[in-house]
């Protein structure tokens, strides 16, 4: 059965490679992408959750002469699999309308899914690395389709960096323990193991766009096809965090680091990096004018929270981190898809050129609105529970540096949320000639919003889902009922919030219902007495340099960021390269002299 899933995915991938029509390819992909989801649903029974059973086995050994690939599902991989694979059918549904022609999106997306399925099932390092690289390769081709130079270059460079870091890490671990199979590995707190863990975590962090290694994200997120970017931000970044989770808690690397450094300094550093990532990502996000870049920086920021949770490592923090990962997978996919839908209708990306789209595309706007509420962690959405757990974890561990930074990043999220809401969907109605997005697109987005609504009142369901993952990783879970989460120091009752809200809503609701009003056009607006028509030639949409005052204050400190560092590195490397090519003078006599010098050097070296 498991072979069948791989086979179906690969056959579908090869089939779509030769299909010109985007519609047919989307249908094939939709069906194929449901296969891993079926398996994931089936495995829910293994981890204490009642579900249908289709009889998918949960492990498989795949062997060709000499090399055996061990595949089996673990509880934590399952948790990540749920979030990654539930994204796919809606994304393909969205793609049905998005792609008229099959430009290579579908086949390589299916290869990518195969690879991700392999990564999550891998139970030895060779399998893990093989599928990791397959993922890097297929996602690179998906980036390559975008034809953008910076995106292609940065993505390939960072993918290779991540791959090589992981490979060296695996090699180091292998040299210490002599085996590649996860269950056989026994770690000691020595220098090699510790550096292996750090290298591998860094390698996985590249895919998760953690701060100093994030430089590819803004370029790739802003140029590749939206459905792919939705999966890249929603799904693939989580695969990176799966790797980190695996290294730190399943192996368990965090304990080794604790033993080696005699303190939690290494994991604390991870938490600090995550917090700084959240903070700076937020600052960069709200100053961005390109909608997709804004979402990219926002992704970097939101993913930073997960790293904070991993760094703190308590049961509270881990629950928060996994919850945040789950939420982020869904709301960010919705936002990227909504951005795609807006671009599909208007063909614009700049927030300063958009505006008023929400009046014409109300359903797209509603999906995006809900996603934004989840992103900004408004307490009536599931987004808040995750952040709340993280804040609680940070405060109860008395992290005086991380906590305020995380909180202020959370406030910053409101700034860019408003930028999206106002700049794209509200404000001046500038797009009279557009229609609502096609039905499959809307259906895709609303399917992705659905989980966010389910976990709104019942965050306990989510904690149940991650229960066995946390227990298996030796972290332990926190006490909760379906709608109350309790920590040592405080509790959060979603039901109380909802009921309280309903009670106090009554007066507001009365005014809301009983108001008698006249709907006025956008043009009937107070502009210091001037009629709107007088301003016909000026944009009334305040979206250019929206956060200019604060940008002037902050930007001088952020100008020398990671991206400019990498650019400088690239330029310096270019100069070294140019210098190194001076060796090749193009003169045969020089080359002959080189040969003779080389000969004498090695003779000298060998004899003396």
């Amino acid at each position, binding site marked *: 059965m498991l072979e069948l899933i791989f086979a179906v995915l690969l056959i579908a991938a090869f089939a779509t490679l030769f299909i010109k029509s985007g519609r047919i390819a989307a249908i094939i992909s939709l069906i194929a992408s449901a296969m891993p989801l079926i398996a994931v649903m089936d495995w829910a029974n293994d981890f204490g959750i009642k579900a249908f059973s289709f009889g998918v086995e949960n492990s498989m050994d795949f062997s060709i002469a000499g090399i055996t690939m061990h595949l089996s599902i673990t509880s934590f991989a399952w948790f990540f699999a749920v979030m990654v694979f539930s994204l796919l059918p809606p994304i393909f549904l969205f793609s049905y309308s998005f792609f008229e022609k099959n430009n290579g999106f579908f086949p390589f997306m299916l290869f990518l899914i195969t690879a991700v399925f392999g990564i999550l099932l891998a139970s030895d390092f060779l399998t893990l690395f093989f599928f990791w690289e397959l993922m890097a390769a297929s996602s690179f081709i998906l980036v390559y389709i975008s034809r953008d130079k910076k995106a292609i270059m940065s993505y390939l460079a960072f993918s290779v*960096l991540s791959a090589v870091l992981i*490979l060296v890490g695996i090699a180091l671990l292998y040299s210490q323990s002599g085996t590649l199979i996860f269950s056989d590995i026994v770690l000691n707190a020595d220098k090699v193991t510790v550096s292996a863990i750090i290298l591998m975590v860094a390698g996985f962090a590249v895919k998760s766009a953690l701060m100093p290694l994030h430089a590819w994200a803004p370029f790739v997120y802003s140029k590749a096809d939206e459905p792919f970017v939705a999966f890249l931000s929603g799904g693939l970044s989580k695969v990176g965090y799966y790797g980190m989770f695996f290294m730190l808690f399943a192996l368990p690397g965090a304990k080794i680091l604790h033993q080696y450094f005699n303190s939690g300094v290494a994991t604390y550093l991870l938490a600090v990096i995550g917090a700084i990532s959240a903070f700076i990502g937020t600052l960069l996000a709200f100053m961005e004018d390109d909608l997709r870049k804004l979402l990219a920086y926002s992704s970097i920021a939101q993913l930073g929270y997960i790293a904070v949770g991993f760094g703190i490592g308590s049961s509270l923090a881990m629950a928060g981190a996994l919850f945040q990962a789950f939420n982020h997978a869904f709301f960010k996919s919705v936002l990227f898809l909504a951005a795609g839908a807006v671009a599909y209708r208007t063909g614009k990306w700049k927030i300063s050129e958009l505006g008023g789209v929400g009046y014409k595309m109300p359903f797209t706007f509603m999906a995006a609105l809900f996603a934004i509420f989840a992103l900004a962690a408004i307490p009536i959405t599931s987004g808040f529970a995750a952040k709340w757990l993280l804040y609680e974890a940070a405060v109860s561990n008395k992290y005086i540096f991380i906590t305020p930074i995380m909180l202020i990043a959370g406030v910053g999220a409101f700034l860019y949320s408003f930028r999206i809401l106002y700049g794209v969907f509200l404000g001046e109605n500038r797009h009279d000639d557009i229609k609502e997005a096609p039905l499959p697109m809307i259906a895709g987005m609303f399917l992705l919003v659905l989980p966010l609504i389910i976990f709104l009142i019942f965050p306990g369901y989510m904690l149940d889902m991650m229960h066995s993952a946390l227990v298996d990783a030796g972290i332990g879970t926190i006490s909760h009922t379906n709608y109350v989460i309790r920590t040592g120091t405080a509790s959060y009752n979603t039901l109380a919030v909802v009921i309280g809200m309903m009670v106090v809503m009554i007066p507001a609701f009365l005014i809301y219902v009983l108001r008698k009003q006249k709907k006025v056009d956008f043009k009937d607006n107070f502009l210091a007495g001037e009629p709107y028509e007088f301003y016909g030639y000026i944009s009334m949409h305040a979206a250019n340099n929206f956060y200019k005052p604060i940008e002037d204050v902050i930007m001088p400190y952020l100008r020398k960021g990671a991206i400019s560092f990498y650019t400088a590195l690239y330029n310096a490397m270019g100069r070294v390269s140019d210098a190194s090519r001076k060796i090749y003078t193009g003169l045969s006599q020089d080359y002959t002299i080189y040969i003779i010098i080389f000969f004498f050097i090695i003779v000298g070296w060998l004899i003396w």
Partner: protein
Amino acid sequence: MVTPVLMIAIPLLAAFLMPLIKKAHRYFTFSILLLNAILSVLLFAKVYNDGAIYETIAGFSPPVGIYLAVDNLSALLALIINLFATINFVTSKKDFKFSMLYLLGVTGATGIVLTGDIFNMFVFFEITAVASYALVASKKDEKAVEGSIKYMILGSVGSSFMLIGIAIIYSQLKSLNLYDIAARISSMDPKMMWLSFSFLLTGIGVEAELFPLNGWVPDAYEGASSNIASFLSFGPSKASIYAIARLLIIFSMSRTYELALYVGIATLLIGEVAAFMQKNEKRMLAYSSIGQMGLILIAFSLIKDTSYAIPAAFFIIVSHASAKSSLFLISGKKGFGGITSKYVGLAGVLSLIGMPPMAGFWGKWYLLMGIADEKMWAVAAVIIFSAVIEAIYFARYLHKNLGEGESEDLGYSIPAAVMVSVSIVMGILPLIYNMAGGVLNA
């Protein structure tokens, strides 16, 4: 039935018969190459089943006579060289002289791989080198001639170094048989031994594109037509790096391995760094080849210590031979014209930077595993660095070629696709690991 001799004798004979068959020379050459490729498959099957073949020619016994030795790795290399030569020849549109030279070049490269005699090796070197000089010049423009002349000057300097090295060995051991030399190498005067090693390394190193002996590489690759550049990257260079591997095994001293490692690292670094900012496509690919040769040498330098070295070297050779040859084949156009060349370019680049499902992935995997066995972390750092550099310039290369450009020349891109698919096949079926394991022991 199948003997390695045929693989050398048939093309050699055919090459000399070429002037007689002027009309149908292309079909003739192609069928000879195809025959050779089939022979090499049969040879490989035989070697794989029955173990290494040692064959003497004309009845003289080993220390004296001409001697062929075929083990798994050399059979595989012969297979690759002949297979790619066959595919590559499809693109040839020149006269019979070209076909003749091409056959000679292939003969020489095959001979280097199959021979068990050091002087024979030199002869085959000369054959393939002389053929290559002429092949590079066959494009008949200024750059081609310039490249050819540089290649020729350096090649002949290299040959003379090699010859001196052989002379020293012969003067000491009175033997030219590789196995014989390997067995008795310790009885040599150490200074003479080192001297001969240095001469040989320098001599072969010129062909094997080692730094700093590789001055001819960028010019020759740039000047040559695309199919010849492609030939250079799977033929002579691979054969000569294999020759260096044999040299290392013969001398089998820790110092020589160490030296090879350093030379390999230097070659890798210089090649990759020089390619980093190179805007000219063919020169960039040439520098990149230099880097890859360094990588192969690093892998070979670990032969003594770890069993991962040979699979690593083998997979990198396959990956590089197939990917780089196909990239050279589709180069020289204004961008990837059509879908085939686009995917060939992608697959080639992904193979070179070591991503599955290409052979390059396994090369990288085994190399790093070998390095981990040896705990040489500095080398690992160098490889990380060079991999990232390589990724950057290949990404730029891919982007530059994205333009719609001219319409696709299927005559070039289909052979290229076939070549690169070899890398994919090897990557998907890592069963070669078993076959390549435990070979090349003298």
